[in-house]
């Protein structure tokens, strides 16, 4: 058969492309890869999840910023200093001189107040941080005031540890300060700019948006009028790379500088690779086994205690959890105020069997165990299923998507569940405890689906009171003691949620990057990075 003209053309086309692709990122541009399926909007008041925080941290500033290395520390950002009133009822922030938005408009106290008021009025995902402490759209005018252009006063609607509020204002989302003039110029139908902010930026940070193509890329370009030290990078290109293996190949080839959404096996392979560094550090939240105390078996504390000894903490963390989590058994994150060391629970089938017999289930029972179909949930659930079986508890695994697993939890329609959560983006023990243990109203009608305590039907008025009291305690030593006492009571009472691992944030990046400090509250400052070339 003769070569057709078509065949020749095709060969020619392939020949022209057999040129090595440019396999190194530019010196002055940072290329970052992660999965952007959770990025639905770029409006700081409306974002959910960690990926939008990664993006917006480089575009918006807050009054303060959460320190990347020391979780208890809060650094000045737009506010150069602040003080708590002696009665603990208000906090006064002093804005620095000369800070401007990328638009050129000066950053004023009015912008801060407007941003916080807007947050409460829109009442979307990010409002919950402040709603928990009594702030609402109705009391916003009284809570956020600007006595002059450089001073912001936050008045607390109800007693709370002021450091919690300061930390909250350092979280990207609720704490982000928007250029009110610019946003209002682009407002439509009184939506406070929600539509426009979906795809535009109005911040004072090191970068501004050049463009956002949903599920493709976000391009940030350097704000040359930044009020502080400008970035060495003229652009940050954030690419949507949904496949972990793809991120890995591109990191190896040097086509991306940082990969944020890599899976365990790929991180393991990259850690052995020259030219790539892998960092793994505690993040926010825990992996846990949850029980529904609506089930009469699980309402029995002896049964729950038995379950505590049927988890192979060491085995799961050694074999399944590398890069995802590290062993942790208390419901307060490492490094938070008052965190006690682990109580040292281990797999102890004999003890568990004895407890089950005491509870009236010497032969175990049948039960269901829900878990997300993704790694590492399914592997952890399978491991737990195996150890439960050793004590006669036959667990049937139900796998599914977020809606099927957490949806059932919200409906209080489950028995056992392997999940992940527990606050921690706010680096304060109250964030963990409120998410995992606190439950002010155990009735079905209350529908407090944002509390895991309610979802699991765990109700302990003493713990509720202790958590509320610890939050408002002004004596630091006493407060620490209170959080320690809470952990001790939790160990005694055996609540519905037993953590076995605390979440690790694992990221891989090219070894020639300097100044990369992964922030455990997700808002990593990418503008501080330089390339040592």
């Amino acid at each position, binding site marked *: *058969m*003769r070569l*057709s003209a078509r*065949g020749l053309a*095709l060969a020619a*086309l*392939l020949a*022209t*492309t057999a*040129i*090595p*692709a*440019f*396999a190194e*990122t*530019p010196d002055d*541009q940072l290329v970052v890869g992660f999965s952007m399926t959770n990025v*639905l909007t770029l409006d700081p008041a*409306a974002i*959910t*999840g960690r990926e939008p925080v990664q993006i917006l941290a480089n575009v918006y500033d807050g009054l303060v910023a959460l320190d990347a290395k020391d979780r208890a520390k809060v650094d000045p950002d737009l506010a150069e200093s602040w003080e708590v009133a002696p009665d603990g009822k208000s906090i006064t922030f002093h804005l620095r001189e000369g800070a401007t938005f990328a638009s050129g408009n000066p950053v004023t106290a009015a912008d801060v107040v407007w941003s916080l008021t807007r947050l409460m009025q829109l*009442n*979307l*995902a990010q*409002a*919950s941080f402040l709603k928990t402490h009594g702030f609402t759209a109705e009391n916003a005018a009284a809570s956020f005031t600007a006595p002059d252009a450089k001073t912001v006063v936050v008045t607390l609607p109800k007693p709370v540890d002021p450091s919690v509020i300061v930390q909250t204002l350092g979280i990207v989302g609720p704490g982000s300060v928007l250029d009110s003039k610019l946003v209002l110029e682009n407002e439509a139908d009184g939506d406070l700019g929600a*539509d426009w902010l*979906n*795809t535009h930026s109005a911040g004072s940070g090191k970068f501004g948006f*050049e*463009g956002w*193509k*949903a*599920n*493709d*890329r976000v*391009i940030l370009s350097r704000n040359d009028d930044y009020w502080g030290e400008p970035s060495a990078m003229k652009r940050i*290109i954030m*690419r*949507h*790379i*949904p*496949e972990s*293996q*793809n991120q890995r*190949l*591109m990191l190896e*080839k040097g*086509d991306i500088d940082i990969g944020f959404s890599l899976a365990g096996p790929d991180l393991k392979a990259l850690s052995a690779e020259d030219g790539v560094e892998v960092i793994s550090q505690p993040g926010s939240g825990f992996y846990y086994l949850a029980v529904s105390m609506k089930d009469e078996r699980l309402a029995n504390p002896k049964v729950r205690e038995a379950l505590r000894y049927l988890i192979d903490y060491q085995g799961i963390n050694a074999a399944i959890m590398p890069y995802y989590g590290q062993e942790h058994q208390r419901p307060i994150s490492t490094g938070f105020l008052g965190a006690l060391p682990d109580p040292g629970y281990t797999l102890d089938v004999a003890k568990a069997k004895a407890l089950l017999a005491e509870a009236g289930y010497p032969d175990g029972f049948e039960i269901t165990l829900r878990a997300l179909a993704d790694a590492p949930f399914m592997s952890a659930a399978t491991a737990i299923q195996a150890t439960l079986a050793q004590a006669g508890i036959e667990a049937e695994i139900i796998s*599914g*998507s*977020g*809606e*099927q697993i*957490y*949806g059932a939890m919200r409906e209080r329609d489950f028995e056992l569940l392997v999940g992940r*959560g527990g606050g921690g983006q706010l680096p304060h023990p109250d964030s963990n405890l409120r998410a995992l243990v606190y439950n002010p109203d155990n009735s079905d009608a209350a529908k*407090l*689906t*944002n509390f895991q305590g309610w979802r699991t039907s765990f109700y302990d008025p003493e713990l509720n009171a202790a958590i509320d009291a610890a939050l408002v305690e002004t004596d630091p030593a006493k407060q620490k003691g209170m959080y320690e006492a809470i952990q001790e009571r939790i160990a005694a009472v055996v609540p519905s949620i037993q953590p076995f691992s605390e979440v690790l944030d694992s990221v891989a990046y090219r070894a020639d990057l300097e100044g990369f400090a992964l922030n455990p509250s997700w808002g990593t400052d990418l503008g501080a990075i330089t390339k040592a070339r």
Partner: protein
Amino acid sequence: MRLTAPLTSAGLSAIARQAGTILVTLLGLLVLTFAIGRMMPVDPVRAIVGEEADPATYQQVYEELGMDKPVYVQFATYLGDVVRGDFGTSLRTGQPVAQDILSVMPATIELATFAILFGAGIGIPLGVWAAVRKNKPTDHVVRVVTLLGHSMPIFWTGMIGLIVFYAWLGWVGGGGRVSDFYDGMVEPRTGFLLIDSALAGDWDVFRDAVNHLVLPASILGLASLAYITRMTRSFMLDQLTQEYVTTARVKGLSKTRTIWGHAFANIRVQLVTIVALAYGGLLEGAVLIETVFSWPGFGQYMTNNMLTGDMNAVMTCVLLVGVIFITLNLLSDLLYKVFDPRTR
């Protein structure tokens, strides 16, 4: 040669009937998609408000999205909007769905077009060749290779392709339509990178875009190549056993003229249908390749909408896919009339 029906009342009623069928098909598609969407365990409200939201926030967004209205009201509202040309706003991107589709469709069209050129351009000659050399070693090799190409899961082939041609050999770009520093350099006049960069005379970008297109298009094309080769072979075998072929050879016609000029000419009609349907399939179904290669195309867009439960966007996508297939069907019917005098 007349291609169009005469404008008699009979001709007009034929057109009207066809239009009616099309409308019913599209409506049926929408009803089915809507029903499935409401039954799926995905919650668009949850996607927007997040896991930790309290019931009050959830309820607020639920009402904002109009989900508290009865199902048939929601559907009727959607239909009413569509008739007025409003295809809704995507919950995921905050942009009008029509605009989203306009920005992702060219990427998929580029991919699918090159894939089908690859698949048909190699597949058809390969199929003819195999048929001519029936049961000889060549035929067996072709059949085994195409069976492999058809059976291997496409995301696996894609990943292997990336490892070999991108990571090891460095011959092609790794994911995305173009290298990062070329992004945004060419003005998007048509949305097709190759055309836009050629129009702008920016040959560096053109080469880079081709570099990124070649691997995903070839792998996508491999799957349709297998199918097209086997069908071509089968059709050709049908023809080659017919008497007119023997007659032509006896009369002194060269082998090439007989095969290509006569036998192949007779299967053009069937091939058109095969290739058209394969093309339609590529346009709407390249989601696995798009995921592996981070290709910002229609397949990913539609799938992500489904996974988020953004039903308005999904229905608009389904509408588009329906229109594409119907158009392709009509086109191939038309080409039938061109190629085959007997249908006129």
